[in-house]
């Protein structure tokens, strides 16, 4: 069987994993929270976009409305809920976002139900052909967004004052406050960036995999695999891992024996990677911290 087309098709789903994974790592690095609500916030924004389109809004306006909603939701949580959990351990802080995700999921279910919908963009109809598989412009945009945000955010975190503050905050909140870092403001900025990111990701995923509340909300689970492969640290490796996982998953389609189990590949890859790295002493310090 010719497996090259599957590699190309894996770029689509890989882009989705990469985007979500980068979003998770970004917030984890800046505020020490693994955001289980990332998918739900994005999905909620995408639903708003979909509804706005239904009211006859132009695509650009509808997209802005969707991203704006995602920003509002993200900042709302970051401003009012997250600080109340700031002094608990990372697990509890992360589980808090799970609560938020469930509320959003329930509200989406109540408002819109589980009817199959999909956001469509003009770029869906344009495609380039590689090895007998086509890659639409929307998918290429998704990959480009992932790549450019990885670069942009890496620079932001590594080179700017804001990035420094964010890193300080995630390391030690009390000391950062003592040093005069405006804790709440910096944190809010982190949640704002995450909101934008979730919104854009939601809009792309609502096209790539469809606008389904439950599926988009729990897309974070395979995305966590990409984040783990990036060591919860590196945006670059998370993005690479996301694309790699997507390609592997698609590639396995070519092998009928394992094809039914191929959607387990994000988890299997992450587990193997953790099993290998967790027992390498050089990585010990980073993981146990």
């Amino acid at each position: 069987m010719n497996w090259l087309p599957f590699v190309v098709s894996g770029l689509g789903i890989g882009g989705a994993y990469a985007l979500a994974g980068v979003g998770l790592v970004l917030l984890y690095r800046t505020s020490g929270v693994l955001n289980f609500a990332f998918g739900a916030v994005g999905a909620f924004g995408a639903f708003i976009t979909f509804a706005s389109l239904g009211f006859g809004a132009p695509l650009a306006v509808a997209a802005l409305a969707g991203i704006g909603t995602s920003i509002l939701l993200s900042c709302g949580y970051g401003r009012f809920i997250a600080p109340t959990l700031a002094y608990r351990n990372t697990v509890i802080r992360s589980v808090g976002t799970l609560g938020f995700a469930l509320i959003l999921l329930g509200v989406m279910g109540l408002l819109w139900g589980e009817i199959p919908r999909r956001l469509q963009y003009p770029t869906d109809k344009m495609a380039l052909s590689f090895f007998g598989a086509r890659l639409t412009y929307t998918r290429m945009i998704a990959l480009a967004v992932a790549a450019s945000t990885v670069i942009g955010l890496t620079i932001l975190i590594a080179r700017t004052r804001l990035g420094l503050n964010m890193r300080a905050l995630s390391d030690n909140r009390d000391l950062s406050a003592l040093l005069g870092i405006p804790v709440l403001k910096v944190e809010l900025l982190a949640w704002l960036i995450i909101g934008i990111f979730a919104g854009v990701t939601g809009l792309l995923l609502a096209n790539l995999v469809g606008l389904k509340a439950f599926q988009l909300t729990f897309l974070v689970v395979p995305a966590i695999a990409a984040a783990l492969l990036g060591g919860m640290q590196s945006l670059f490796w998370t993005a690479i891992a996301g694309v790699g996982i997507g390609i592997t998953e698609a590639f396995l389609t070519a092998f009928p024996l394992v094809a039914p189990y191929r959607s387990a590949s994000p988890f299997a890859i992450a587990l193997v990677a953790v099993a290998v790295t967790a027992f390498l002493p050089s990585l010990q310090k980073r993981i146990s911290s």
Partner: protein
Amino acid sequence: MQRPLLFAGAAIVGGLAFSAQAAAAEDISCGLSNGQVASGEPIVLGAIVGKTGPDDFSASAMAADAYFECVNANGGINGRPIRYIIGDDQWNPEVAAQLAAKIVQDENAVAMVGNSSFVECAANAKLYADSNIVAVSGVGVPRECFSASNIAPTNAGPRISSTAAAEFAGEQLGAKNIVCIGPNIPNVGAWSCEGVVKWGEANGVTANTILIDPGSLDATSVVLQAASFGADSVVLGLPKGIMLPILTAAEEQGFDQTMNWLSAASGYDTTVPGTLGAVWEGKFYVNMEFNPLDSEESDNRNWLAVMDKYAEPENPRDTFAQAGYLAARVVTDALLSLDPADINRDSVTAALSRVDNFQSDILCATWYVGAEQPRQNANHTTRMAVTAGDTWKTVTDCRPSEDVELADIIAYEKEAGIAN
């Protein structure tokens, strides 16, 4: 982008319903049709549907509910009203079993009507058998819904529906190499596609099966896999939420131009042609287990009129709703045949197992409950339709399925003299 189309779809159906009602305002028919509100001791009926979960399967019970409300407003069951309890199994067999305990054991329902669920039949078949209660299901999906003596769905089921689509592909579209795509859900996907493969073997058509994880996000690989089999036609046996991304991926890959795309009845939904868009015009075929939704025949018009008067506007007027309406009609007819003072589970079960000649223009053929039969699958004659603008166009007449698994059913029909 899709919402206006969705509204448009609803408006078309709504418009039809209005015209139908205008014509049928006086002769809207349900139960005794005497216009008197029933007020006696209620008769309890129940339904278990999968509402919350991957897809909303509650339309069947909503339609049955509308019909029963109509019956209650029109003399009830010889004066006794129907109390209809609907449970949401959330696609979880554990919940389905709990709901069955509630409806069958606590509420003492005399029959189950309009069930439609992926999990319910398997979870509750034994309880129904032990409690001597008949379930006139609306939409049976997994094999267990078609393999119990006292579960009698009004629909044909995914296996017959998929096989019928393959038969159409082979006979009308000249398919020589078919791929059947089903969910890897036990007793659903493999069972449905087996019908397609067996039909292919018997008719010299190559047929392969692809089973997919319903949770998988990667639809493109699935269509590429279908292409790698060299398929000229693809039969989808998937819930519409999983089916649409596959069609979209097919379109992205340009396979809408090079292959025939067909679906079991799960694809027959008013919103699908609009959601797919103009590219798919005349290219996507679906099997219909019932008469077209906009059919002008009398029982179908009566269904729409009942929905219009007694259901909420947001309740779907889809093929599932037709199934639920039929189930409600079957049970109402059976209840009306009994002495209203002597309606209990045993008498209702006996009355339902006497149903051997139920007629409706929504169905292609006679519907019945096979008395003492180990399994029920009365509906196995179906039609095909194709996308046409924002709606569907029927392209074939009623045609009985050639599925080999129906041998026992056909033999029984011959023996019992049921003309199908």
